């Protein structure tokens, strides 16, 4: 219907006697009018039908009608009220364009969300309506010296007041300037910030703002009726036509892209239910949406935040661009991508119930992973705390108790020497006995300290420590070391304690020989102990398990695998 109106108006504009519009100046201007009108109508329909019943569609169609209005003002055969209506409608182009621009810069075009007009848009509509109503009631074209443009009987005229109309036109120019400036400012701020999904489409915002600027320029250059024959105004008309065509293209492109996303998200519902087991949900989502850096964070209440698929906590996006996915009222996940945050907002809303269910299922799995990860971390912390405690105890023994005993030993020896020099045999013997006892205590202390953790394990490495273990044990211990790089301390400690447990068990069982082999392959330390008797190895199991390793044993052999990462 609107397309029909457009073609009719264009037809009319060519055989009109009066110049009411640029379109009538020449065929080029006529072509600009036709193309821009059709483009705006088309874009308006696309936005209207493609984007739900939101207001941007209405605003775009309103802009299209307002843009065509000057054409039918010059329709001589029409009833006078049609011409008057045209004069009423034409100035509405400005607020309609402001409406479009702000709709796309505040994210109000959510489709399913109710449209909230900004204050600027409301002011624009009110000012324009007041202006056109006042002008219609006060402006008598016959008294207007510039009536060449719309010399028609104004059917709405109440009382002709040319002076008031002149003031009104000046006020309108000023209002247009202020509104235009306000829009440029707000558009610049939102586009520059590009925060969250505030800017739905930069292209739409920029072209609509440009079209508004052209409107403002026209109002400034020619208050009241304008003379289409002025070259500056003709140029502005062409620029306006071009910006409106670009706006229409931007609107169409945006709607098309959004449709693509929606279609892919509809596919996602199937994809999610089919593929969850085979590939990760994030992969399926990113394939369906075309966002390659898409990340998913699952809500885990115990973590008081979101957690990635591997169970690691995922801090919130510093720019606040995470899109939350809810199932009912409960948070399920956040979707994060740095590529195209304008369409991200749509993903959150377009996800179907099946996809939400799939995400929630995945969330439950991730919650388990998170708890397991927490347990593993806690085990590792306990082990390292116990190592630290052993090390401190060892140091206390060496630097505290042993040093004090050495001082006692020194005094005893000095006393024994003095007593020997005096020739007091009985006392000398007593003191020498004490010296021997003191030495025995020192030796005992040394063994205790060594049993906690041999210092050589940290300074000489696992193989050296195991050889040392062989020196001290009462059985034959061979060590074959094929590790190349130095091992991380916790790994070396666990490997040492595993081998030490096996050697201790072999000693208890009266075995005569234990062979230890160390391999270091594919990021894992493998400790093989041949001749290790059967036993529980509970502590070894705990320690190795805390590092994510495992223990394999058969009758006479023990094999311990510890990841080194």
């Amino acid at each position, binding site marked *: 219907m609107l397309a029909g109106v457009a073609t009719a108006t264009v037809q009319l504009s060519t055989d009109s006697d009066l110049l009411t519009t640029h379109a009538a100046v020449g065929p080029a201007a006529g072509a600009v009018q036709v193309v821009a009108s059709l483009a705006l109508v088309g874009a308006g329909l696309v936005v209207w039908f493609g984007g739900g019943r939101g207001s941007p569609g209405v605003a775009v169609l309103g802009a299209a009608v307002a843009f065509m209005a000057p054409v039918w003002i010059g329709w001589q055969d029409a009833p006078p009220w049609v011409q008057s209506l045209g004069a009423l409608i034409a100035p509405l182009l400005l607020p309609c364009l402001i409406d479009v621009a702000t709709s796309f810069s505040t994210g109000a075009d959510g489709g399913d969300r109710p449209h909230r007009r900004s204050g600027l848009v409301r002011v624009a509509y009110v000012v324009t309506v007041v202006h056109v109503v006042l002008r219609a009631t006060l402006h008598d074209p016959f008294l207007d010296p510039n009536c060449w443009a719309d010399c028609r009987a104004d059917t709405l005229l109440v009382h002709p007041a040319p002076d008031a109309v002149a003031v009104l036109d000046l006020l309108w120019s000023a209002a247009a300037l202020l509104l235009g400036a306000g829009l440029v400012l707000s558009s610049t701020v939102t586009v520059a910030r590009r925060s969250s999904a505030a800017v739905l489409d930069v292209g739409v915002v920029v072209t609509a703002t440009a079209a508004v600027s052209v409107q403002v320029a026209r109002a400034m250059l020619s208050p009241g009726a304008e003379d289409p024959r002025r070259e500056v105004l003709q140029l502005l008309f062409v620029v306006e036509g071009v910006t409106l065509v670009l706006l229409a293209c931007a609107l169409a492109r945006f709607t098309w892209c959004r449709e693509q996303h929606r279609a892919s998200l509809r596919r996602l519902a199937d994809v999610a239910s089919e593929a969850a087991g085979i590939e990760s949900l994030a992969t399926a989502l990113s394939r369906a949406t075309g966002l390659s850096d898409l990340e998913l964070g699952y809500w885990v209440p115990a973590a008081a935040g979101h957690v990635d698929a591997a169970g690691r906590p995922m801090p919130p996006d510093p720019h606040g661009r995470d899109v939350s996915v809810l199932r009912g009222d409960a948070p399920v996940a956040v979707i994060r991508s740095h590529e195209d945050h304008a369409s991200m907002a749509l993903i959150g809303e377009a996800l179907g119930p099946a996809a939400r269910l799939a995400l929630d299922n995945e969330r439950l799995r991730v919650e388990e992973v998170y708890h397991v990860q927490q347990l593993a971390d806690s085990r590792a912390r306990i082990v390292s705390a116990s190592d630290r405690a052993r090390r401190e105890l060892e*140091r206390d023994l*060496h*630097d505290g108790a*042993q*040093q004090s*005993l*050495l*001082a006692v*030993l*020194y005094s005893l*020896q000095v006393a024994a*020497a003095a007593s020997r020099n005096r020739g007091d045999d009985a006392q000398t013997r007593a003191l020498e006995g004490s010296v021997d006892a*003191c*030495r025995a205590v*020192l030796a005992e202390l*040394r063994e205790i*300290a*060594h049993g906690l953790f*041999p*210092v*050589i394990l*940290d*300074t*000489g490495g696992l*193989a*050296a420590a195991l*050889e*040392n273990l*062989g*020196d*001290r044990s*009462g*059985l*034959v211990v*061979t*060590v*074959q*070391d094929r590790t190349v790089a130095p091992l991380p301390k916790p790994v070396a400690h666990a490997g040492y304690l595993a081998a030490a447990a096996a050697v201790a068990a072999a000693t208890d069982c009266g075995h*005569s*020989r234990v*062979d230890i082999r160390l391999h270091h392959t594919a990021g894992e330390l493998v400790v093989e102990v041949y001749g290790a008797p059967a036993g529980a190895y509970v502590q070894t199991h705990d320690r190795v398990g805390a590092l994510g390793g495992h223990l394999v044993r058969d009758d006479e052999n023990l094999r311990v695998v510890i990841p080194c990462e």
Partner: protein
Amino acid sequence: MLTRAGIVRLLTEAGHEVVGEAGDATELLRHVAQQGPDAVIVDIRMPPTHTDEGLVAAQQIVDRHPSVAVLVLSQYVDPAYALRLLEERPERVGYLLKERVFDVVVLVDALRRLHDGESVVDPSIVSRLMRRPRADDPVDRLSAREQEILACVAEGLSNHGIAARLYIAERTVEAHITRAFQKLGLVDAADAHRRVLATLLYLRSDSEPTSPTPATDSLRSPPPDD
């Protein structure tokens, strides 16, 4: 601290001059460079980690000052530490347990031996190595005397020193050593210092004879056949 004060007192009483005392490795190295002492006594535990900084400092002294004798005091009866030191330079280095040095006779004797160019290895380490079980133990094939002399060799004593300790003639000592080394499959190095290291490495390894000239790898036991 107590140990250091005690040692200083013992040495001064025994008529030796203590030219400097140091609290950490840097200070120690500076003293050695400035004073050029005959001998240095180092505690293996030094700041900051109190593990083996003293050994590292000792190795540096051995490396930079070939004429300075170095005696490392330790509380670890770990042959690996003694071997690390001996491998750097077999002569004029010693490794003794801390408690032993309060016996002024032992301390002065060790310093004198080091000054004469011998090595000193703590008897506890040697006896632990001698007692160590080995598969089909060749050390068991040695006579009691030969074992005794082998232990003396491992402690770093010269033939003269062994003869003096065991009250036997030096030529008897030489004969025993030759025989013992033959039984163990060791080549008696002409260099008296090398034989200390060779003996220790042999005792540390598992029955297979080791090369008398040590390589770093020989710290590790030869791998059993796969």
